[in-house]
């Protein structure tokens, strides 16, 4: 069963996404609540995909992505970056930090799930 690591500090957002993804019946969701834990978790548990909120405590999403990309075991994991901010620059910076796709919040879950499926299949 594919495992998705969702790095998100907001509890409500985490709960909602877990509900959505688990409705798919074949996706497992693991949550990390800050950037540093997220990087550690990515290295240790080798998830099949990472959903990265960009604004996190301890270590922000951009830096966390860079570290995941730098890690030998985590380098290849597909990452979708999620941003609540209206600023356009987030998108460019997220791609520069190494994400494979980008979604703004509030998340269009149908679209997000489609993207997850696509990245998992690749």
């Amino acid at each position, binding site marked *: 069963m594919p495992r998705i690591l969702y790095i998100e500090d907001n509890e*409500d957002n985490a709960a*909602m996404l877990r509900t959505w993804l688990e*409705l798919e019946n074949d996706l497992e969701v693991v949550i990390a609540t800050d950037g540093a834990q997220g990087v550690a978790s990515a290295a240790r548990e080798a998830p099949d995909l990472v959903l990265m909120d960009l604004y996190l405590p301890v270590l922000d999403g951009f830096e966390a992505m860079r570290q995941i990309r730098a890690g030998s075991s985590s380098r290849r994991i597909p990452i979708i970056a999620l941003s*609540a901010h*209206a600023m356009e*620059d987030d998108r460019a910076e997220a791609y520069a930090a190494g994400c494979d796709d980008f979604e703004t919040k*509030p998340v269009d879950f149908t679209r997000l799930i489609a993207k997850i499926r696509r990245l998992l299949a690749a």
Partner: protein
Amino acid sequence: MKRPATSTATVKVDLAYPDLAERVRAEQIRMVYLHSPSTTGGSLVAGTFLIAVLWNTVSHATLLMWGGALAIHQTFRILSYRRYLAAQPTVSQSRRWGRLYILATTIAGCIWGSAGVLFYVPESILSQVYLCLILFGVASLTIPTISLFAPAFYPLIVLVLLPFIVRSLASGHSEQIALAIPLIIALLLAFTFGRKINGLIDESIRHGFENQALIEIAERARLDAEQSSRAKSEFLATMSHELRTPLNAIIGYSELMTLHPARFATQAAKDPLERVLRAGRHLLNLINELLDMAKIEAGKANFHYEDVDVAALVRDAVETTRSLAEQTGNTVSVHCPDALAPLRTDPKRLMQVVLNLVSNACKFTERGQVNISIAQVMSEGGKWIEVAVADTGIGMTREQQERLFEDFSQGDAATQRKFGGTGLGLAISRRICRAMGGDLVVVSEQGKGSTFTARLPERPPREGESTESGRMSPAPGMKLPVPATGVVLIIDDDPVSRELIAERLGRHGYATAVARDALEGLRRARELVPAAITLDVVMPGYGGWSVLAALKEDHELCVIPVIVIAALGSELNKGFSLGAAECLTKPVDPDRLVHALNHLTGRGESRSDA
């Protein structure tokens, strides 16, 4: 220290410096101390010369004692000068140094004054003449150097000259009295010139301080403005996050529960939940648009320019609005020239504008046609791309057209209920076009339809470049009725500006009339029905903006193009949204003003008949 009557223009700023007088005095003391070397030098030279010429007339002992006293005194003065330099006193400490200086000059005055009596040898006229000359010289020397500091100067002058004057006048002999005369004149001249110089220096020092204060005020204002701007940006960023976060839950969960009713046992709640979902999405759109507008207004919207295939973009937009067109029974067609060069623009923003125009056209037209035409246009020394969206819909009245680009105005409540929408679309679209160096205008007739034309320059404005040259006003193809007179009315409270503008316009062949304030401006506008009005909005009392509003509300006067002259760049949008034909900032470039007037009154255009 009084300001002399010779002072020129005063600085208008009231700077409440309680210690300005103190600071001025301290500055004068400093200047006068810095002159010490030259006064000391001059004094010693004069003294030596005096001793030399009187060597044979006066007893050597007297001369040498006097000379000694002078030399000791001048040494003391040089020492105190050096101590002053070392001490670098503050304003409050300068008082003490000032008193020291006055003491020094008083002693110097006594020494020189005593020479006038001690060396008074009436038997030798030549010696008297030398003495008189030297005293005259010493007095003159003090004018450029010591008159800076009045409390030292006047006593000194009197002490140096008066003893000799009194001595000669008291002698009763005409040749001796005659020698008093040049010194009396010297005394008078010293007082006159001394006062003048003192006044000028005082003035100049005060101006120096006032300039310093003004610079400090300007610097503080700049920092305040920067901080305010930063605060606004941070606020925007925070609001964006804060406003959208609760919507995550509202939209997310209501969508979940409507898509998976079985799972959440919400079969019965399907309709109410769908309403919640719709309301949530609507709120999100509203927030996004508000924030978008705020960003564009604040100049914080980032435009990412690329080479864009406009025809392809328009076709994409049509595809996106296909279902809306089908819903309203409209046929949408696109016309485009074959070889259309790519336009350097922000594709996301252009798409935003085109989608807005096309969806509006579909919303306000039923079972009609929506034609989108793309054209390349040459105008005003540049290439432009125009995207015109023409519909055969309900059209608009004059009043509706005027309010069209205002925020939140919509055709009618029924359309809003039917189609949703926030009422901000056109306001944002126009702001986007203008921010990219172009404009968005409309031509419409009630019952017949409307045509919205977005015009963009081939090259977007560079960072900091003005975006005003792209403004279109009036809309092409829409002619203004020919006005009653060919006069340009200048409304400005500042007589200098009025004169300048009137003069420059006169040179270009315009007849001008002037008004001094808002009320007079409105009155004259009604009298003259001018061809155009220039309006300075920085006016006291009734205020420039209310003049503009009043003009636009008056049925007769609303067609007169108004050129608003504002103080700040941030007011330009306000001017346009209130109906100005053109907005310029101070200081006004006269050529641009003339150019704008030519354009607005139809002069210099080949199809004009103004």
